[in-house]
């Protein structure tokens, strides 16, 4: 067996062991605390089973919550790509455009999505509220990464084809696009992660009855923390899975690159 495979298997085993250790540690701590607000691992597991099979206090299944959250995320994320990528490309190709607008754009970038909640409550209704918040979370990483990707196109590569007399279209297709796509993909992956993290905030004010953020809120109001933790874990695990899938796709599409970071 190759050493790379050995390393992968050994990492996997260590991860399992670490997970078991954390769960055991949690269990011992919870037993020691002996508080109704500090659920044992067993209780969390039961809550998970309950939510998956019978649904929550209103009978909505866990899978429905997850599905709806995912739909909203991808809607907001989709809008962020459609707005962020063209805008990023434009600002990257025409630096004057960016330089003359950044005094306004950059401060907005630093306003966390949560700070927008009061405005969205006043100015928007229903679906659009949290679609907007999710869009906000995803837009800026995508926009900034796309913008920077254009500036990072290596002039040597452009000159290589220029000397052969390449047409503008040839240069764009063979040099510019392959150059910028990996950075845009990174921006998208980061944007998706942030958008997913906005779900709780978004669903708080959305008013819909279904969604993992909503789920957490429901049970927080009822002080039933086992279910709250199930919600949190679901959010974390799905975010993790999405990230891993994205990375795997990136690794394949951009296999010509040296190892990418997280």
């Amino acid at each position, binding site marked *: 067996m190759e050493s790379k495979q050995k390393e992968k298997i050994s990492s996997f085993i260590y991860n399992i062991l670490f997970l078991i250790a954390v769960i055991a540690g949690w269990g011992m701590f919870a037993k020691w605390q002996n508080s109704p607000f500090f659920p044992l691992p067993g209780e969390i597991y039961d809550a998970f089973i309950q939510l998956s099979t019978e649904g929550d206090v209103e009978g909505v299944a866990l899978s429905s919550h997850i599905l709806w959250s995912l739909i909203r995320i991808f809607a907001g994320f989709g809008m962020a790509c459609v707005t962020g990528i063209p805008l990023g490309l434009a600002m990257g190709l025409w630096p004057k455009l960016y330089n003359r607008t950044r005094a306004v754009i950059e401060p907005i970038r630093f306003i966390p999505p949560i700070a927008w909640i009061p405005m969205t409550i006043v100015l928007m209704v229903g679906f659009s509220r949290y679609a907007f918040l999710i869009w906000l979370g995803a837009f800026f990483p995508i926009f900034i990464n796309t913008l920077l990707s254009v500036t990072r196109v290596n002039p*040597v590569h452009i*000159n*290589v*084809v*220029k*000397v*052969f007399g390449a047409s503008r279209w040839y240069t764009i297709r063979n040099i510019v696009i*392959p150059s910028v796509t990996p950075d845009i993909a990174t921006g998208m992956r980061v944007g998706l992660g942030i958008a997913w993290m906005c779900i709780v905030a978004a669903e708080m004010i959305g008013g819909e009855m279904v969604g993992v953020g909503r789920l957490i809120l429901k049970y927080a109001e009822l002080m039933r923390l086992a279910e709250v933790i199930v919600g949190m874990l679901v959010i974390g695990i799905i975010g993790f899975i999405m990230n891993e899938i994205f990375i795997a796709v990136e690794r394949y599409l951009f296999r*010509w690159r040296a190892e990418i970071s997280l």
Partner: protein
Amino acid sequence: MAFVTVDISKRFGKMDVLRDVRFTVEENEFLVIVGPTGCGKTTIANIIAGVEPCTSGAVTIRGERVDPKKHNLSFVFQEPSCVPWKTLINDVLMGPEIKNTPREQARRRASEIIELVGLAGFENYYSRQLSGGMQQRVAIARAYVTDPELLIMDEPFGHLDAQTRYLMQGEIMRIWQQEHKTVVFITNNIEEAVFLASRVIALSKLPATIRGVHDINLPHPRNLTDPEFLRLRRILTEQCEVTD
């Protein structure tokens, strides 16, 4: 009429980089332009290749103003210029692609040249899997595959370690003797210049002007300790004002 005529001046803002640089290039000669670091040699190379414009004057090939879309030019850059997202063979095939060479013919020629530069078997490798020396060989292969009228090399061995550099100097001579092309080779290394050139032009410091032009008739491979070799080396060193 000379094959290539160069008559250029270049100014960046208020600074004169090239001042009335005038020379010709004969067909099939290996012309080396040698000068101290930062004297504007790369600028000359870029202007000849049409990558940069000159402030005044012109470069002509057979009387026509040089144009990458009209003339068949090739350039080997100083820094690694392999396109990372293409495999070796596809990188080398870019030139023929741009010039609309029929695929079969291009592939055959590419295989020939890849073998000539010593990279047979690496066709499907990405540049991240190749060493610096190998990447420069790819750049050289890419430059030769299009059968250029004029091949410009801008300090192609500058980023390589000393041993690889020595090796590549020998390789370039071997390749040139097999695929005779008109080459303009830029370097700051005087020994390299005398080792390779059939004719050498010495440039001064900024603003660059021509200090000397020498024909070199020594047989290849050249002996670094030959008295004529050493004489030329001495003269060029003086003319380039390298020892200051």
